Structures are given as C-alpha cells and as structure tokens.
C-alpha cells in the first residue's frame, strides 16, 4: 500500500494547513485522529489523503475528545501521532491533554486559531487561545508551544514540534492561526536526509529493571511501547517511578515538579526567536504568528520614518522566553505587543519587563489582522514617552 513518498522534497505552493500535514509526514508521523473544524480541517483532509499512501493511519473520530485520546493511544503503540483542531475543539481536548502531560506521552496538537470566544468567527483569524495553551488543562504543568508565521514554518515547526515532543516526552502544541493555516505560499521541502529527526529514547534493557517513570539526567524517562513485553502500567493518577499510583504529597512533589522542570531546565534548547534591528532598538515589537508579519511591516514603516525599532518574533511562545525579555527590558524603552486578542502574551511581557520597560499592547479581538498603521501609532507613542 505504500505508494507515496513521505517527504515531498521540492518546491511547492501550498497553504499552511497542507504544509503542516506534510511536515508531520516528514517528521515521521504515521497516525492522525481528528475531527473537522474550520480553519484546521485541511490538515485532516490532507492527512486522510496522504497517510494511507505511506502506510499510516487516518481516522476521523466522533469528536475532539476521542481524537486526542486516540492520538495518545497511538503514541503508546510506538507511533508518532498528531491531531489538529481550532478553538472549540481545543477546549474539548483540555482534559486529555492533561493526561498526555501526566503520562508523558509524545504527540503533537495543532490549533489553527480562529476568532473566539465560543463559536465566534469560524472562518476568521484570532489569537485568543495563547494563554489557554499554557493553562487550559486543570492542575499545573509546563508545555511547549510553537507559533508558525508562514506556510514554510507550518512545515518546519511541525517537524520541530515532533522532535521536541519525542525528546522531552510531552504533547507539543502548534499555535497557528486562520491566516497562517490558509495562506498559500512557497514551501520548500528539503531532501529527506536533510531533515533532522529525533525519536523518543527507548528503553531496551531487561524487563525486570525497567521503571517507566525513572528519569535520566535530562529529567526524561526512556519510553517503551505497548506490546514490547515490558508490561507497563500507565495512569493519570499521581504515580511513582514504577508508574504505580501514590497518594503521598511527596510523590506529587517529585512527579509534578519534574514534569515542569524538564521543560524549564531545557528552555534554552527549546526556545527559538527571530530578531531584527535589535542592535539599536529603543522600542521592540514583540509578536508571533500572522501578527509578527504585520508588525514587520510596521517596523519597516517606522524605520523609514527614522524610528529605532526592533522586532522580536516568538517562534517558541511557551516556555516563555523570560530571559531574553528581561535582558531587553534592561535596555529598551518599551515593548509593543500587537495581538489578535485582548492582551495575553502582553501580560507575560509586562511581567518580565518588571517595570523597567513599558509594555504597550496593541489589541484586536480577531476577525482581521491589524492595520500596520495601528502598530505604527503605538511606536510613535512609545517613542515620545
């Protein structure tokens, strides 16, 4: 049945959703369970077409809860797995997303954000789920969330997301948006051998010695798959290194701290940023997703008008690049944060700025991207304070 290449090396003109699906296939994803929802549906549709070509499995489940559950199950079968959705479906996934963090199950969840809250603006852009990505499931945990800004990045970051998820054993989120999901652009898919692939650490020692939740130095425990004979017991209850449930506050402390620490301690490895004009900037635009591209235009306009403006694009949104923001806060006058929400990442920027630099959110709740001139106005404002 394997008839198509997994890696479509070459130059393409495809939209972000399709690029995301191709990225997943290139990363080795062989299982997709999903449920249609605008503007993420094309990811599922592409996977439905392509997975059978490469011997993988596509299934449309009865809802998003079933979708993420099936993805977690597939991951424990040893297969790289993904689902894709938008706000309403993302909300439904929250409980089982938490199960993914608790059981340290590698997988990738794509959220192509539309205008919210609720059904909101199904076909139009929004970035209102950024904080939900961090805090949407109950209990405390750390996550990794990447925000692509182009169709090319929908491809690239999907690979990165799989690699991070395999490396650190957790669900990794791709927080895209309706514009980036539907924008059609040149996407260059490199030859298969040039694509770096990370696979989960596998335990291959004798059965008797295997402790499913005994971490190594990087705080990540090696993994096995169901059916390999290790007879693991995996539970969403607080558990000890054997995986057995425990109700001791100590076990909770050890487990939950480690889940957070494995992300925090490796933040440098995880965080990616793109910067422009930082050398002389006294005002810095902080943005992500489509807003970063709009902000770029505002920077061009501002620089043309003689303003010393820098541009910081968050590719990794979570863990939040605190360190870099704190550094910058010490030497710039203001951060300008254009977002398609009521101010989410702006709060993080404000926290890290710690009063040393001003934080100016430029907000729209979605439906359309900013007019670059709105951002320009904020630059002007900041340049005058």
């Amino acid at each position, binding site marked *: 049945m394997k*008839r198509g290449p997994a890696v479509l090396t070459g130059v393409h003109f495809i939209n972000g959703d399709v690029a995301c699906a191709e990225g997943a296939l290139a990363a080795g994803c062989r299982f997709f369970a999903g449920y249609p929802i605008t503007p993420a549906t094309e990811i599922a549709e592409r996977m439905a077409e392509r997975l059978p070509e490469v011997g993988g499995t596509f299934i449309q489940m009865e809802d998003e809860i079933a979708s993420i*559950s*099936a993805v977690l*199950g597939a991951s424990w079968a040893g297969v790289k797995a993904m689902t894709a959705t938008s706000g309403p479906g993302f909300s439904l996934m929250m409980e089982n997303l938490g*199960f993914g963090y608790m059981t340290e199950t590698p997988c990738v969840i794509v959220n192509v954000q539309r205008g919210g809250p609720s059904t909101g603006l199904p076909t139009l852009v929004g970035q209102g789920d950024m904080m939900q990505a961090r805090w949407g499931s109950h209990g405390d945990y750390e996550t990794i969330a990447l925000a692509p800004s182009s169709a090319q990045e929908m491809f690239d970051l999907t690979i990165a997301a799989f690699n991070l998820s395999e490396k650190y054993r957790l669900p990794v989120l791709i927080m895209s948006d309706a514009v980036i999901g539907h924008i059609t652009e040149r996407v260059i898919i490199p030859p298969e051998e040039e694509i770096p692939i990370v696979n989960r650490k596998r335990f291959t020692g004798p059965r008797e010695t295997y402790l499913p939740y005994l971490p190594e130095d990087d705080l990540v425990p090696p993994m096995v798959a169901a*059916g390999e004979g290790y*007879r693991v017991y995996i539970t969403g209850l607080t558990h000890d290194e054997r995986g057995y449930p425990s109700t001791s506050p100590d076990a909770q402390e050890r487990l939950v701290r480690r889940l957070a620490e494995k992300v925090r301690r490796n933040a440098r490895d995880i965080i990616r940023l793109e910067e422009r004009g930082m050398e002389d900037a006294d005002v810095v635009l902080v943005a992500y997703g489509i807003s970063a591209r709009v902000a770029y235009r505002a920077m061009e306009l501002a620089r043309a008008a003689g303003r010393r403006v820098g541009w910081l694009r968050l590719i990794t949104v979570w863990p939040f690049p605190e360190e870099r923001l704190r550094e910058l806060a010490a030497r710039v006058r203001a951060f300008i944060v254009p977002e398609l929400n009521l101010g989410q990442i702006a709060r993080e920027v404000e926290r890290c700025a710690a009063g040393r630099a001003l934080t100016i959110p430029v907000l729209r709740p979605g439906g359309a991207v900013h007019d670059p001139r709105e951002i320009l106005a904020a630059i002007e404002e900041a340049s005058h304070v």
Partner: protein
Amino acid sequence: MSEERHPLDHLLRADRLPHIWCPGCGIGIAMRCLVLALEELRIPLDRTVVVSGIGCSARVAGYVRLDGFHTTHGRAIPFATGLKLANPDLTVIVFSGDGDLAAIGGNHLIHAARRNVDLTVICVNNFIYGMTGGQSGPTTPLAARSTTTPYGNFEPPFNLPALVAASGAVYVARWTVFHVRRLITALQEAITKRGFSFVEILSPCPTGYLRRNKLGDALDMMRVFKTQSEIRHGAPPAEVGIELGKKLILGKFVDLERPTYHERMRKQLAAFFIEPYVEKVSEEVEAEEVES
C-alpha cells in the same frame, strides 16, 4: 494451610495486593476470569493490552500484569482505538465500569461498535458509580436509592446489550460474577472474535449500591445471581433489559460475522495506489467557502 504464591500471581501485579476493592466486591472475580481466560487462550500476553477509564472497575488495568492503561474517565475506548489502529498486532481489551463506559463514555462505545474496530469491551455493571461513593448511573434500576437519587431513581436504565447491538457489535454477552466458568468462556469468545465484542458482567457493589438499597451484602447478591438468573442464548437484545424483581437474562445474545474496521479498510484502499503519487490541487483549494 498457607503458602506464598497464588497460582495466578504471575499474571498479576501481586506486589499491589491486596487490592483496593471492598470486601465482597465482585470486580476481583471479574478480573480473575479475565486473567484465566487469557491464560487458557494462549495468546501472546506480551501483546495483550488492557485499557480502562476511571472507576473501581477501571482499576483492573493496574492489577493485571499486562500492559495496562488507566486513562481518563470515559475515554478508554478511543484510547484503545488509537492503540489498535496504530498497532493492529495488539490484542486490545477495554475493561471498565458501567458509568465510565455508558455514561460519560457512551458515545465512544456506540461509535466503536459502529466501526467494528477489533476491540473487546468488558463492562462491569454494578448498577452504580462505585468509586465516587454510590451515585446513580445509566444502569441504575428504576426506584433504586443512590446518593443522587435519594428519593429513588426515576431514569430508566440502558439495556446495554441492545444499545451496543443496535450500534453494530458483532458479539454481545452478559454474565454475572457468579457464573465464572461461563464468563471465562464468554471472555475467550469475545477476545478471539474479530470485530467489536462486548461482555457485560453483573457484579455486586455492597458499598455503593446494596447497602443503600437494603439488598443485603455481597453474598446476598451472589445468591440472587445464582437463583434469579435465566440463561437465554440468542435472546433478542431488546428483550434483555434488567428490571428489579424480574429474572436476569444472561447468555450470548449476538454472535455474527461482519467485516472489521481493518478488513473494510484494507479492501477499500486496495483499489487505489496504482499510479505513482502526483501532487494535485486537492479540492480543498476550491473549498473556499466553508465555515465553523
């Protein structure tokens, strides 16, 4: 009259015994029947997986020495579906409670049956939510007391065999934890059956159900199972609903052949992939006008 190891300890996580179930709880018997069924079947246990949701019954996944997944409340079936689809070589058994499978998990139950995924779903029906302390559920008999039906339950329960049969299950049986030998046979049939099979196991919950309903203790319930049951293989599922005071109808109600999910998939896909891959504008590009 005492020795170290029970003959089934090698199939259990014996280091976790005694288990958390109450005195007289039937789940332990159901678990043994599963373990015995598997042992006798001689299928590769390294490739046998037990998936459960949340509840007393769901704790089984943590006591059998197999790969065990104790997932979230209601989601055992979709998790199991992912496992099975990603690795069709696994024997995937879902073991959980009536509330887990038929209340919060009801949708997954009927959809998995519809798809005829090759899963075995074992449902311990103790007529109540045991783990949370005795609330009513979709199998609680009419008029029964529970902590959330203090004046007696007035929601008719599901007839689970009828529900899963109408959804497409190819094997449907019901036994009680008293009928251990028949239950073992049923579990073996269900596990070896290709497609979606469902076994309902009636079980006493003295703590959450019997006590509150003045039905005596677990032993009394076992006596009821022994004396008030009627075995009617092939009974039309619609006629096996459980009603207080009437005979409990047990037996194998459905056992039919229907292509499984994988069989249908393979057949359907076989017609394709004759030509090499060509990038095409999928119809998405034209499906410009879709919403929600």
